[in-house]
């Protein structure tokens, strides 16, 4: 059992780590939890113990600064711990954890959720082939282990991450066979005004593109991968030109590769917020379903604060500021003084969010995206369910994600639906002509993370996880 404290914070990325620092500075006893070994979150992920020395990057510098600040603070950081259930009794939050197979529980008067995002990948034929990894996922591999994803990699997807990932792969000695991005140069021009608020990041982005161009890495603008070739290993991809709706309509190109990075933007990780009782609303410009939270992270629920990309994809700079605000206001609610820069930080948040939202806009779904997913394409990876199988269930009358789940087991597998629910919902909305706002995500059920059976308290009867049993409807 971890000592009880005033505030428990889930997620040690830019948002949660800064929340912990500002709350501790105000005088609160704070415990910060993360499943990663060290703080840093996704953007500032720490290197593995196998990396003794490497050239610093803006991400590694920012991460090291944050880790130093935490080490010199009163914050109790607990790494390698996964939160799988959140409950509340009276005014006290109970956060259930598992670390190294052992169950744990921590209690606190206030709970700050800073769970960040995960990526959305539009299913395409062959995306389950070994060698195809997520685009954001690739950055985790590149930052943590400094290992390129293969020998020759096609880097595909929306937003700035394709250029960052391709540049990093090359810096680490990998070969980038091509960059394939559904975005057009015109898409980028349209977000330029908002980007100018961060000239440093614009310059960095231009340097990536200049280098990739100098190195003659082909960049296919307005294209998407429409097929990954190979069964047990990737041996190439087909990229197709997209029409204005985003549907693959134009010329096809074959590209040889043994690995692929594929991603279509980020979606807020809201399951912890759902378990804590937060309401969700649909805001496509924020990445989809987001919990209701104010600029300072406060919610309608007493003692619950939500900040960072988990409250809407506004990017790391905004996450950092919202985290500081949430830490301040949570401590203030417990009787500690509010820091004097509280109001100034609120306006800084709006400025930072402007850049982040422009990046999110590059990944907004388009009507033609659905045409990338053919009937034979696997939609639910865990249960190997094709689009055709799910369409058949809808034809039988399934009208909600929960109904599709019970009819097909889509989303009941090991990932808990994290990689199919959004795809199923978008497909339902498009094929039924329904507003995506009318297809809410399924009810969140514990466990938030795979947990061995031995960990479950009385009343939970799941079999040996991580292969989880069907969640009740």
């Amino acid at each position, binding site marked *: 059992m971890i000592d009880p404290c005033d505030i428990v914070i889930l997620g040690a990325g830019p948002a949660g780590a800064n929340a912990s620092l500002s709350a501790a500075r105000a005088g609160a006893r704070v415990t910060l939890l993360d499943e990663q070994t060290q703080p840093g979150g996704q953007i500032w992920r720490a290197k*593995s113990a196998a990396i*003794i020395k490497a050239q610093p990057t803006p991400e590694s510098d920012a991460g090291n600064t944050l880790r130093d600040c935490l080490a010199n603070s009163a914050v109790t950081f607990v790494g390698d711990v996964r939160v799988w259930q959140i409950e509340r009794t009276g005014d006290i939050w109970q956060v259930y954890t598992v670390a190294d197979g052992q169950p744990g529980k921590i209690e606190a008067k206030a709970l700050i959720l800073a769970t960040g995002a995960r990526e959305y990948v539009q299913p395409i034929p062959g995306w*389950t082939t070994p060698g195809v990894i997520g685009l954001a996922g690739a950055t985790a591999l590149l930052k*943590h282990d400094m290992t390129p994803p293969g020998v020759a990699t096609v880097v595909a997807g929306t937003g700035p991450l394709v250029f960052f990932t391709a540049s990093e792969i090359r810096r680490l000695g990998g070969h980038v066979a091509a960059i394939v991005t559904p975005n057009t140069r015109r898409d980028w021009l349209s977000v330029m005004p908002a980007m100018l608020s961060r000239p440093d990041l614009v*310059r960095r982005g231009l340097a990536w593109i200049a*280098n990739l161009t100098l190195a003659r890495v082909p960049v296919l603008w307005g294209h998407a991968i429409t097929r990954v070739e190979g069964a047990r290993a990737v041996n190439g991809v087909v990229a197709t030109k997209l029409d204005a709706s985003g549907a693959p309509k134009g010329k096809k190109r074959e590209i040889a590769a043994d690995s692929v990075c594929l991603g279509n933007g980020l979606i807020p990780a809201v399951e912890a917020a759902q378990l804590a009782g937060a309401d969700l609303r649909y805001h496509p410009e924020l990445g989809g379903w987001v919990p209701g939270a104010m600029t300072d992270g406060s919610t309608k629920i007493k003692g619950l604060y939500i900040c960072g990309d988990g409250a809407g994809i506004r990017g790391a700079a905004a996450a950092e500021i919202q985290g500081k605000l949430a830490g301040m206001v949570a401590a203030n609610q417990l009787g500690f003084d509010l820091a004097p820069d509280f109001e100034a930080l609120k306006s800084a948040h709006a400025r930072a969010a402007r850049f982040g939202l422009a990046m999110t806009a590059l990944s907004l779904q388009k009507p033609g995206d659905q045409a990338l997913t053919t009937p034979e394409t696997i939609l639910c*990876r865990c249960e190997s369910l094709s689009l055709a199988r799910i369409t058949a269930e809808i034809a039988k009358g399934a009208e909600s994600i929960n109904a599709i789940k019970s009819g097909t087991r889509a989303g009941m597998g*090991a990932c808990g639906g994290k990689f199919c629910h959004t795809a199923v919902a978008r497909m339902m909305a498009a094929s039924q002509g329904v507003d995506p706002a009318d297809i809410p995500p399924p009810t969140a059920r514990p466990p938030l993370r795979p947990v061995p059976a031995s960990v479950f308290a009385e009343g939970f009867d799941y079999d040996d996880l*991580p292969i989880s049993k069907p969640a009740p409807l």
Partner: protein
Amino acid sequence: MTPLLQNHRSPVQRAPMVSFTFEGEALSAHAGETVLSALIRAVHLYLRDAPEDGAARGAFCCMGLCQECLVLVEGRRVESCRQVVHDGLAVEALKRVPHD
């Protein structure tokens, strides 16, 4: 002005090598790296068969969520994207037919 990125491998100093096995094959890894990273370097991207249709699968999310990278270590299913390699680690693949 941001200097243009170096296009050649930037020097990375890594921990000394240790030995581990994947499906009985002897491989080496830098102490402390993830099993996934070591397997990628050894060009073992195919890690398991999907339980329903037996199709080949490998790591996907690289952040401990998707469970596509599960392997067997000491009889336990672990995520190879999070499991750290140490000397003598024996890693088995969750495949239907033994690797040929």
